Structures are given as structure tokens and as C-alpha cells.
């Protein structure tokens, strides 16, 4: 790479590579269905030309000719680089890394995966007579190796393993609509997966939706479960994204730092290195070490996610925060959100409240969220609470404005629970519109 770069007159470059081996199985009513294995590589080459303009090319061919071709492609593309805000190598790409303690787990034979998934499916199917299929199911394991190197001598390398189990049963009773809910578990290896917990959660959730009723359209207090609240925060991640601020598509502005953007009860950090984050990255696409970053404290906006380029553009002492994705235009995204709310109104409780909508999971976030406008209108799975009793809601959407919703948080209940995308307690929000299907 170095020699090729020199030959092409490229003094500055960097390279990010990800290699993976994935295996997965799927079953259908006691029989193996599909077994899959995938070996994959992806590489992104970024070069700076003699005018300081940047070009990139991605490839999945890691051979010397393949990488040389990508280097040449990136060099050609650099002629069209953005002269106004070209990125630079991250000054933190050579900083010492604190290793994460997630030792890679061994890969299990596919037959073992099949046996465990068949057993899980059998337990789900036998849990209730209304459950006749588990149409969406799978057990997967993955090995990943990441590499980041650059012409300034940075070398980052990390190996991770992960495993996932998902079970989404379908239940149907005579004369009633089919119902479905599910559960997902992640771990660093198949042996560490909480199979029993996943089975129990998938069946309990699905069964709890069998007895459903329509809900009257109106304005309700809503209690978001941890997954649902985290999904909402992720969907509006541009609020804390410095690149989105610079691009003018964020609800926030540079001057928003310090502003009260949420109820004083809400505190949110992004913490890629949290022990609950499976296969957590030690560094981002620019080689910058990951870290815990306070985003909202007591409702006040404290920090934005930054790349090398946005931190330089802000010129306010900001530094890259370990959230960058390599590309012709560097993008930013959260890693793993950690919500730590204060209790607030202690009279609000899932065990005793009435007339409250408890939202378990949100759907169709790609369609129902207008991140630049702040609005959302999303279908959900959930229950109407009555004195702590739960009755499944037949079909409904929840709608609101994220800025208003965050300001109207009235309680954060229970211990934060870990999910694949972060950690959160149950979060209560007043004044959201629920539309029930007639």
C-alpha cells in the first residue's frame, strides 16, 4: 500500500477494512429451513491529492491488485473532492487505546446452532395453543476483524465476535386477528446467549397480545419501554450530530449547546464502551478511540458527536468523539445510548396507573420519523393500563414532536435495562396522540 501510494505520488492516505465470517440458521415448525454462511470483506481507501482534496473508493477485493485498483480509483476521485471542507487524518488516530475486555468466543458448528434453535422453537410452539408458527426466527454468529491504518503510522486492529437469537412467534385464535411480538438477544458468543430469557420474553409478549381491544383516538400519557424509547432517540440522532448541524438538517444549532432540550429528568450519554455493548468498537472509522460522551445532562444539551472535520469546523475546542464513519463525506452516528433518568412523578407506575399507554416496541421508524422536522407518527405494540392490568391495543400509532415529547417527560421508572442499541429505564411522556384503528 505504502509503495503503491508513493508510486502514485500520494503522500497522505488511510484505509479501513472489515472482514467477517457469519453463519446463521433458520427453522420452520421443527425442520431446518435455511442455513447460511458468508465470508465478506469491505475496504475503504481514502487519499489526499497534491491539492489537499480527498477521494475515496471502496472495494471487497483485498488482494494487492485489488487494493492498488482502489487506491488508483480514490486518487482519481480526489479530483472531485470538496475543496471547502476537506477532512484530515484524525489527530487521535495514534493515541493509545484502552482495550475492551470482550474476549472473542469460539464459533460453534452449524449443527449445534440448528439443534439449539429447533429446541427454542419447540419451546415457543408448546407454550400456547394459539402459537402455531415462529415465522421470523434465527440464530446467528459472527466474527469480525477491523483494521485501520494511515500514512501517518496509525495502526488500529480489533477482533470481535457476536451472536444473536431472534424469535417472533405468530399467534392466532379463531375469529380473531393474528398477533405477533418477539424478542432478541445478543451476546459475544452463542454459549453466552440468554436463550431461556429470549424464549420466555417472545412467548409472554405474543400471548399478552392475544386479548386485544381497539383504543379510542385521543391524547394519552405514554410509558415507553426501554427499546421503544431508545428507538425514538436513535431516530432523532441528528439532534446531537455535528455534521447534521453544519448541513442545516438538524433540529439543533451550534448555539443549542447548554440549551434545555428536554425535561430536567433526562440524562443521556453515548457510551460505545459500556459493558452491555456487544462487540463494542474500540475505535471509529477515522481511527479515533471511542469513549463515553455526555449528550444531555439534566435536560441540557452538553455535547455533539464529532468527527475530525466537524470538530475543526466548529472551532470551539471540540474534538473528535469516536463516532465517525469513513467515506467521501464523513458521517456520524451514535454508538450505544445510555439513558439515566431521574424518577420524577413517583405516582406514575406501570403497576398501578390507569389510562396510560405502555409502548413495548415501535415500528416503521424509517417511514414515520421526519428527523429534520421533528415529527413522528409510528405504529407500535403496546397495552392500555388499567389499575396496573394490561390489555393489548389492537392497532394504533403514536404521534408527536420530539422536541415537545422530550420536554414532557414526567418520570423515568425502574432500573435501566440493556438492549442491543443501548440502556434505558421506562420513560413516561405526557400529551402524545394515539390513533386507534377502527
Amino acid at each position, binding site marked *: 500500500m505504502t509503495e503503491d501510494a508513493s508510486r502514485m505520488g500520494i503522500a497522505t492516505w488511510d484505509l479501513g477494512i472489515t472482514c467477517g465470517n457469519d453463519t446463521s440458521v433458520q427453522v420452520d415448525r421443527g425442520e431446518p429451513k435455511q442455513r447460511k454462511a458468508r465470508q465478506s470483506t469491505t475496504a475503504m481507501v481514502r487519499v489526499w491529492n497534491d491539492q489537499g482534496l480527498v477521494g475515496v473508493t471502496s472495494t*471487497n477485493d483485498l488482494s494487492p491488485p485489488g487494493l492498488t*485498483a*482502489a487506491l488508483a480509483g480514490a486518487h482519481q476521485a480526489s479530483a*472531485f473532492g470538496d475543496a471547502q471542507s476537506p477532512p484530515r487524518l484524525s489527530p487521535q488516530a495514534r493515541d493509545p487505546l484502552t482495550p475492551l475486555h470482550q474476549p472473542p468466543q469460539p464459533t460453534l458448528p452449524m449443527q449445534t446452532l440448528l439443534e439449539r434453535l429447533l429446541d427454542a422453537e419447540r419451546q415457543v410452539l408448546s407454550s400456547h395453543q394459539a402459537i402455531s408458527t415462529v*415465522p421470523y426466527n434465527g440464530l446467528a454468529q459472527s466474527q469480525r476483524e477491523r483494521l485501520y491504518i494511515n500514512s501517518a503510522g496509525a495502526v488500529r486492529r480489533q477482533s470481535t465476535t457476536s451472536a444473536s437469537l431472534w424469535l417472533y412467534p405468530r399467534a392466532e385464535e379463531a375469529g380473531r386477528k393474528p398477533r405477533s411480538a418477539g424478542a432478541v438477544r445478543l451476546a459475544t458468543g452463542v454459549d453466552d446467549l440468554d436463550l431461556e430469557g429470549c424464549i420466555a420474553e417472545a412467548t409472554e409478549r405474543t400471548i399478552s397480545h392475544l386479548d386485544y381491544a381497539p383504543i379510542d383516538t385521543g391524547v394519552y400519557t405514554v410509558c415507553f419501554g426501554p427499546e421503544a424509547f431508545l428507538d425514538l432517540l436513535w431516530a432523532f440522532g441528528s439532534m446531537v450530530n455535528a455534521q447534521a448541524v453544519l448541513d*442545516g438538517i438538524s433540529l439543533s444549532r451550534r448555539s443549542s449547546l447548554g440549551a434545555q432540550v428536554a425535561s430536567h429528568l433526562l440524562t443521556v450519554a453515548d457510551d460505545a464502551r459500556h459493558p452491555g455493548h456487544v462487540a463494542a468498537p474500540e475505535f471509529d472509522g477515522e481511527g479515533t478511540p471511542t469513549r463515553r460522551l455526555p449528550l444531555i445532562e439534566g435536560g441540557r444539551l452538553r455535547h455533539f458527536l464529532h468527527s475530525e472535520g466537524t470538530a475543526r469546523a466548529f472551532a470551539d475546542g471540540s474534538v473528535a468523539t469516536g463516532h465517525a464513519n469513513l467515506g467521501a463525506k464523513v458521517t456520524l452516528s451514535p454508538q450505544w445510548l445510555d439513558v439515566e433518568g431521574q424518577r420524577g412523578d413517583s405516582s406514575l407506575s406501570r403497576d398501578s396507573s390507569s389510562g396510560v399507554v405502555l409502548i413495548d416496541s415501535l415500528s416503521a421508524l424509517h417511514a414515520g420519523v421526519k428527523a429534520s422536522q421533528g415529527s413522528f407518527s409510528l405504529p407500535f405494540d403496546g397495552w392500555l393500563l388499567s389499575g396496573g392490568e394490561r390489555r393489548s391495543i389492537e392497532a394504533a400509532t403514536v404521534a408527536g414532536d420530539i422536541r415537545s415529547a422530550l420536554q414532557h417527560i414526567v418520570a423515568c421508572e425502574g432500573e435501566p435495562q440493556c438492549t442491543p442499541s443501548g440502556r434505558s429505564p421506562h420513560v413516561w411522556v405526557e400529551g402524545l396522540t394515539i*390513533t386507534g*384503528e377502527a
Partner: protein
Amino acid sequence: MPSLCLDPPVTSRLDPLDERWRSRLEELLAAGMGAGADLVEIFVERNDQLSVLAEQERITSVSPALGCGAGIRVFKGNCDGFAATNDLSGPALMTALEQALGMLGLCRSASASRWQGLAALRDYGSVKEQWLKACPTVPDAAERLRQATAALDRHGRHLQARRASFARDWQEVLVAASDGTFARDLRLHQTTGLTLLAADGDHRATISRRDGRADDPDFLANWPVEDVAVSACRSAGKMLYADVVKAGDYPVVLANRFGGVIFHEACGHLLETTQVERGSTPFADKIGQAIAHPAVTAVDEGLSPNSFGSLTMDDEGMAPQRTVLIKDGVLQCFLSDRAGEMRTGHPRTGSGRRQSHGFAAASRMRNTFIASGPHKPGDLIDSIDHGLYCKQMGGGSVGPTGQFNFAVEEAYWIENGCLREDKPVKGATLIGDAVTVLPRISMCADDTALAAGFCGSVSGSVYVTVGQPHVKVDRITVGGR
């Protein structure tokens, strides 16, 4: 685990995917059949992609991407094993085959297979070889995108962000199977996008327009930049100060073109054999029965020239068809691929599709639309006292029990048979399920048109078109505030 050392054996980009692959593929297929497989299929591809983004007056991203790989699928009884690799070298492909065989408890044997070999190559790509060279260069694309953002600037008000994008995907594929299938194709897909964010105080509106065509190197040159920009800016002007829609049940008129996304999501997916296999479609045993209003005839086909979902062959080497799904409200058939035919008995329809070599093919839609009816669009409006006109649809999805939801990007009230363009509303979401809504599509206009889109499902993201005429739904739940 693949190594990150930079000297493994590799693929060569100077190795065309054509007749010269015959012996390599036959060796793999013979090995698979010799191991006891019922059928072995190999999908090989190379890609050359480019995407360009303009923001305001600047080009902020030029991203070329090169790729290659193979997916090998082995069938035995009703089961299949699938292995994919980026490495097109002989040893790597044999390793992938052995992996797929091993998933089914099969292993290569020394004994020779009785397999008869591949048929003559059907080369659908030979007439397309020059298309890539005819596609726009990066400077051409950059100039066109700058024209687009400039047009937005000229026609829009209160614009806070303007974006124009272009993407080109050139794919070379070779499909070989132990039933003798041997076919090659070249595919060209190009898309353009225009997005603006208008903001005035607390009022905000985001408007997007997307278009796409297959097998048309001149697509970008012919992109009607000015018209698209005017349309987007006009919508933004209407929606910036629009009221939020009041939630409730309404009669609705859905505009043509991208309005067809509802049929695609709410009904089309339920007519794929993958859903029949899973037991997750309510229509599994409804062939010959009425599942929709008699006004509804729906088609899925891969034949319309240059339409985004059109194919010369599917990803299993089969020529596409015109498949009538619903005729006068009565279910006619399902969309089926090789595995779907084997597991459900529904014959293949040339609908086996996949995003890339990394996915096994599955039954997927192509160009899916509701056919034109006898009415004029105005007739539909005239028939409604108080309802909603959904002019531009956003995205949507369907859940595992068939419940769908769709965001409406641009909508207006209908009052006393009149379209009130002075009463735009935003924040609407249409929700329901196919079983309930299909019988409520009571009127179809005579203006069916198609719109390009992307569909994500079990075999990844594939190019599709959706379409319909203006249709009236007698009653549907509209989520709002």
C-alpha cells in the same frame, strides 16, 4: 477467518464472467451433485458502482465502489444450504461449495457424478457491453446535480438545505445450476434524488423526489431537472405552513405513481411464496377467491422497458413474466422462485431476486401495479364529502401479521367533492391491514403510472417499481395529531 494480511490469493478483474467460466462452474456443480445434492446453483457477480452528492452549490461526495463475489446454494429435499464469498478463486469457491454441502450433511466424494453439464450460455449481456461507457462521467454527473440544486434555489423559498444525488449500479452476473441453467446478464440501474428542507421559524417541511431507470445510459442526461425542482418547491411551499392532520377514519384518494407503495407493501409481499412458506400470509389458500373489491386488478411483471424493476432474467436465470396477481378482485396466483416452487408448489414466475451474491434468491416483486380502471381522477374526488387526498406518499412497511403503515408526505383535504389545495395537511400516516383495506378500494381511475423504488426484504434490497392509478379507499385509519 479471512486474514488481514495483504497477500492472499485473489480474484482477477481481468477475468470476464462469460463462457470462459464454464469449466470452473461445471467442476463445482459436478462436485455438488456427486456429493448427493438434488440441485446446486451458483451466482457470480461483479459490480461497479458510483454515487455522487451535491449539497447547495458543492459536490460533497464522490464514492466509487467495486465488488465481486459468489453465492452457492445447495438443495436436498426441502432444505437448502447457502454459502457466499468475496473470493472468486477456484479454491475459495470449492471451499464455499463444501461449506454449503456440509450444512446439509453432504460431503464431496471421489466418485464421478452422472451430471450432464451446462446448457449453451444464454448471454443476455452481449448487447449491453457498451452501456457502462455510455453512462455519465463524474464531471457530467456533478454538473447535472449542481444544475438541480441551483434550480431548487431559483424556485424555492425559505430553503435551509438543498441536496441532489445520483447513483449508478453496474452489475455483471452469471448464473449456473445443475439443471443446466447457464445464463449471463449485464444490468444497469441509475437513480436520482432531490431533497430540500424548508424552514421558517418553527415551521419545517422536508420534500423529496426520486426517480430511477434500468438499462438506460442516458437517464441522467434526460432527467427533467427543472420540472422536478419546480414540483418539489411547490410542494414545500404548500407543506411548510400546513396544519397537522386530525387523526380519524376517512375516505381517501391516493394519487397515482408512488401511491402504489401501499399495494406493494400491504398486499404484494403477502403474495410472495416466502410468505406462504412461513405461514404468514392470510391469502395462502385464497386462489380463485375474492380478496379485493371487483374494481381491483393487480399485476407484477418484469418486462416494461427501462422500468426500475424490469429484468432480462431473474437471479436464478429465468426470463421474467407478466404475472396477473388479482383479476377483478379475485386472487390468481403467487410470485414464486425456485425454492418457493419446491416448497409450496406454486410455479416459478421469474421472480427469484437478490440484492447481491451475499443473499440466496427469494420470490420478490418487480414492477407491481394496480391496473387502470374506468374513472377519471376527478370522479374519485367528486364522490367524497369529507376526506383526504394523498398526493405524495413517503415510505412504509408491513408487519408480520399483515398490518401496514405509510407516511404521507403531502396531503390535502377534500370537502364536498372539491380538492382543497388551500388546505394542505401534514403528519398523516395510513394504517390498516390488507384483508380489510383491499375490499375498500372501490374506484380506480384511468391513469396508472409507475414510480421507481427500493424494496428491502429477506433477500436484501432490490430495485422495484410500484404503481397505480388514482384510487379511492372508502375508509382507512389516518394517524395524526
